[in-house]
């Protein structure tokens, strides 16, 4: 296992003629919690989606745990990976969405069990035990048989985190996990994420929760208009931003 979990080299992404990512260079170390902030439309979600190849990178390279994402480099040329190979890469990368995206026709426990059982093909008994442990860990032992529609937003998001963890990923991506929640429910989700960080999970967290970024984040990235404007320790960036754009953004959100 290398020390660097994620390495982005000049990552560019266009949608048609619109350049959304304009050369992102970043490194996330093993066990690091990197928080990403930036105005709406700056490309934060797109960057996360490139990391697990939900979007194809147009230029540059993305490596997760030393492996090139989405392509194979061979004889100086890039070859697209087959669907199964891309899926295999995604097994190691958990993702949590702003709108939870739980499977509404399955119970909470079935949501957590689906991928390990049917994607990895692990035995049902093993998966069930792990799923029940995870539900307990996110504080929802009593809600395993509930369907998503019967859960509050905060509970749904905690199930979504358990679902991602059930695949035993090396890396977790969070795309504004608390932005769709009522204010009083934000805390319970951040608590689960804080525990996860403490246990050493490598995490990239797009968030507007500056308190969380300051307390839990090892590093903080400010993105604007498809580039990384500033990266540093959360305290430095939040209290002593070096760039005008960072200052402007922080003055609006703090």
């Amino acid at each position, binding site marked *: 296992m290398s020390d660097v979990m994620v390495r982005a080299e000049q990552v560019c992404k266009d949608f048609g003629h619109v350049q959304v990512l304009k050369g992102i260079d970043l490194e996330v170390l093993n066990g690091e919690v990197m928080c990403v902030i930036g105005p709406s439309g700056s490309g934060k979600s797109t960057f996360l989606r490139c990391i697990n190849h939900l979007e194809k990178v147009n230029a540059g390279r993305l490596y997760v745990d030393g492996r090139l994402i989405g392509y194979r480099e061979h004889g100086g040329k890039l070859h697209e990976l087959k669907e199964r190979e891309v899926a295999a890469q995604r097994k190691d990368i958990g*993702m949590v969405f702003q709108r939870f*995206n739980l499977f509404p026709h399955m119970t909470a426990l079935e949501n957590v069990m689906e991928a390990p059982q049917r994607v990895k093909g692990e035995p049902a008994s093993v998966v069930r035990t792990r799923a029940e442990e995870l539900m307990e860990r996110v504080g929802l032992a009593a809600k395993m048989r509930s369907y998503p529609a019967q859960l509050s937003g905060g509970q749904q998001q905690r199930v979504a985190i358990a679902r991602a963890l059930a*695949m035993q990923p090396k890396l977790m991506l969070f795309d504004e996990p608390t932005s769709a929640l009522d204010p009083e429910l934000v805390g319970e989700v951040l608590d689960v994420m804080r525990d996860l960080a403490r246990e050493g999970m490598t995490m990239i967290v797009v968030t507007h929760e500056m308190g969380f970024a300051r307390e839990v984040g090892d590093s903080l990235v400010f993105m604007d208009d498809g580039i990384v404007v500033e990266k540093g320790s959360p305290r430095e960036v939040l209290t002593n931003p070096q760039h005008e754009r960072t200052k402007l953004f922080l003055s609006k959100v703090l």
Partner: protein
Amino acid sequence: MTDTERVRPETIRAVPVRHPGRWVAAAVIVVLAAMLVSNIVTNANYNWAEQWKYFFSPPVLNGVRNTIWLTIAAMLGGVSLGIVLALMRLSPNPLMRGASWLYLWVFRGTPLYTQLLIWGNIGALFPQFGIGIPFGPEFVTWPTNALYSAALMAALGLILNEAAYMAEIIRAGILSVDPGQQEAAQALGMTRMHTMRRIVLPQAMRVIVPPTGNEAISMLKNTSLVAAIPYLELTFTAQTIYASTYQVIPMLIMACIWYLILSSIMMIGQFYIERYYAKGSHPGGGRVRFIGGTA
């Protein structure tokens, strides 16, 4: 002022609006119904005795059986092929999309009756049927008429037509599922097929089931068109009987009564199936399934 002190105002007891129009309409309907009943009882041309004589006769029962199996086969085949066509229609591959579009254009743009006539005369279009290399040599060939069977052509004709309609229903169902569901599934490492089978299609069912029930009931009635092949289902059986007895109206009404019995059974089934899939649209219910997007 606290709640207990608050005085409830007097309960409203208003004079309800009168609806004289409803009484007139009811009177008209009662008169019409009385006329109909009187006609059914007194008009000898219905010849109920003749209908009763044939109702459970072997040829009619055979026709009913053929109608039932054709309906089931056409719906099963139509749904299966419809899923394939819907997935092709949603495929990223433009050739797949184009092929599916062309299929729908042909089969939805021509009358079913005419299509069935063509299937009935398919031997005139393809006199031989063989297996071999496209545009190359054929290894085995048969004369089409040796393989031809009216039952096969009837089922084939109905399936191919129904698939075009089911494809649109299934496509609409798939598109009704929140795209976030596919993203979440892919992010967990599921393949496209797995995502479709386990995540998208079960949720699409809520949208797919009601129109499919209507299609099945239409199909029951459309089987009568395979007389074009010709194949001995219920209506064609009735025709063959009155061809020798000249009791045209009694036989056709007998066929209608059979269709009504069968379609009533299907409507009851449809009611229960729809109720099953509607369950869980609300967070309150016990066993919640098939709700829309998460929020």
